[in-house]
């Protein structure tokens, strides 16, 4: 059984752990893994992120599953969050796109603009 104090400790510790910006956790990658995400192929995308990071010996980035963010038509959705809380939302992800995001964004800090939600919205608007 946890006491109230222990609960408070877990809260602080986990917040510290999941907040990007520490040495062991530079970025947090969230993969939408609700029914909509999984149906659209989120599982192989998540695995691709894990594989690509491993291949490159990158251990200061965490990959985590999360629930539905609401824009189900754009799944699989992946968000990359940095230490300032800045979020980059990648939509309609594939394994190939995941590999490119790892090299360009995660390693080299260059956002893959053409995979972002803004770009997808722009394309839809253009028809």
């Amino acid at each position, binding site marked *: *059984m*946890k*006491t*109230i104090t222990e*609960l408070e400790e*877990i*809260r602080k*510790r*986990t*917040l510290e*752990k*999941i907040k990007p910006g520490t040495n062991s956790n530079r970025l947090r990658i*969230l993969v*939408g893994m*609700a*029914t*909509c995400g*999984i149906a659209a192929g989120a599982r192989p995308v998540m695995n691709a992120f894990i594989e690509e990071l491993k*291949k*490159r*010996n*990158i251990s200061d980035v965490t990959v*985590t*599953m*999360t*629930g*539905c*963010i*609401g*824009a*189900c*038509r754009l799944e699989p*959705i992946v*968000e990359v969050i940095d230490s300032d809380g*800045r*979020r*980059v*939302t990648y939509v309609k992800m594939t394994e190939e796109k995941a590999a490119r995001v*790892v*090299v360009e964004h995660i*390693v*080299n*800090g*260059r*956002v893959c*603009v053409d995979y*972002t*939600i*803004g*770009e997808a*919205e*722009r394309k*839809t608007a253009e028809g």
Partner: protein
Amino acid sequence: MQIYRAHVLICGGTGCTSSGSENVKKEFEEQLKKHHLENEVQIVGTGCFGLCARGPVVVVYPEGAMYTMVRVEDVEEIVTEHLLKGRMVRRLLAGGQEAGDVTQSLDKVDFFKKQLRIALRNCGIINPEDIDEYIAFDGYKALTKVLTEMTPEQVIDTVKRSGLRGRGGAGFPTGLKWEFAARQQNETKYVCCNADEGDPGAFMDRSVLEGDPHSVIEAMIIAGYAIGAHQGFIYVRAEYPIAVKRLEIAIGQAKEYGLLGKNILGTGFAFDLELRLGAGAFVCGEETALMTSIEGHRGEPRPRPPFPAVKGLWGKPTILNNVETFANIPRIILNGAEWFAGIGTERSKGTKVFAMGGKINNTGLLEVPMGTTLREVIYDIGGGIPGGKKFKAAQTGGPSGGCIPASHIDTPIEYDTLVQLGSMMGSGGLIVMDEDTCMVDIARYFLDFTVDESCGKCPPCRIGTKRMLEILERITGGKGEEGDIEKLETLAKNIKASALCALGQSAPNPVLSTLRYFRDEYEAHVKEKRCPAGVCKAMMKYVINADSCKSCGICAKNCPVGAIEGEKKVPYRIDQDKCIKCGTCMEKCPFKAIFKNV
């Protein structure tokens, strides 16, 4: 062959050479020797990377880190930091490509800007399978507060003052419901969560359970404390395997942490929770049928009163709340009743989650403050109707609800206004329809659903809805008779007045509300045998315009039933007896010579 653990690729293209890559390479060789890395790291001269303007370019593998504008003075840092200690030198990374004005994150696109996420606060933010992440975002803090600082009466008072009303459909004030159950003198009471979500096209509750299961668990424990119950059940449909799995994991973790079970957080309060899987019958979302099903019987409703708060599961006082209702509770406790009551409208407080589908650009899940207008939801958040089509109506409340026509698009969405319009809030299904939708066909669709889902216990629902469906099928089939519309109205009135449960009582709603706003469409079907939207196949035909037909024969080639004939230079013709009205010819005609005749 020697195996290197890392490779340093240095560009030897013309551009980089002219910006000094030769010297950089030499410096790397020296620095590697100095730090005894020459047998672990290999230097490779490569061709152009194409980033000549930012040369010299150096790429380090296995990471693939690309350093640009590397000066000789930078090399030692790359060697000691990156190659020796495994820490990339961020300041030299290629970095910041100009994003222009492309919006990069979800929280900045229109779809999100008008939303306010309370029930969905953690969905898409935390890992639902990790209780620690829920705790990190203030999870189980409300439970701690309730168990250590509040009496059950204070909890109920807070929920009452917050103005929270049930999100499962009927909109009954949650605090009142809890108070009724709390007043019952009984050793055994139960807390139930309705996660049946049978409304076709709705997935709000599934998303909460998949994305934030602990919020529901925490709220149920709080409810247990408030009414004096020590056992809870979550009734979830078996068709939601991911939700079921995440709930199982969450319950397991909560038990491990002592947040479920005896002596919760050392306060002496005990509460346990079990899952019950439903087989996916719509009627089992109705509260009395749901409880009958939990008891292990066939899911059929029973008359009320007695209400569940007095006599529920196994005859004991029971509260039943919807998933989204529960998901609001922890925040209400933490932020206070006034905070919640400050959101929304006079009689509808807080937010509502909608699953928006149909003819809308941004299908998906959204949460908005009560009182947001339908226009804002459809155009600002939903991004409007695809193909520039006109908005015709929106269906809320699913098979128990009704439609809101375009003329009422500026109506604020709240419980009472929707009822006034002949619809209802429902659980949050929102189906958007454009000008190509036939409202009679929509009514037929929903009635077809309720006929299928009627449990058969009471005759008005079992027989009455079937008769209504037959009439609707006749009308949409082009065989409508004089007096059919009036018959529908009489049946609807009687079923509403006499059905046993709300399934039957609300089944005629889609018919009544479409009749209210689109009676002319019904009349066109019955009197003129015409479907104005061109949906009902029996009343429309595909016709080839002889003037624009170029006799290319593409339509005939693509017709799956060989109903089109013709020859060179003579316009083609469709044999209406053979035509199955699939529309393929119209789609394929390169000259737009085929049209629907309604």
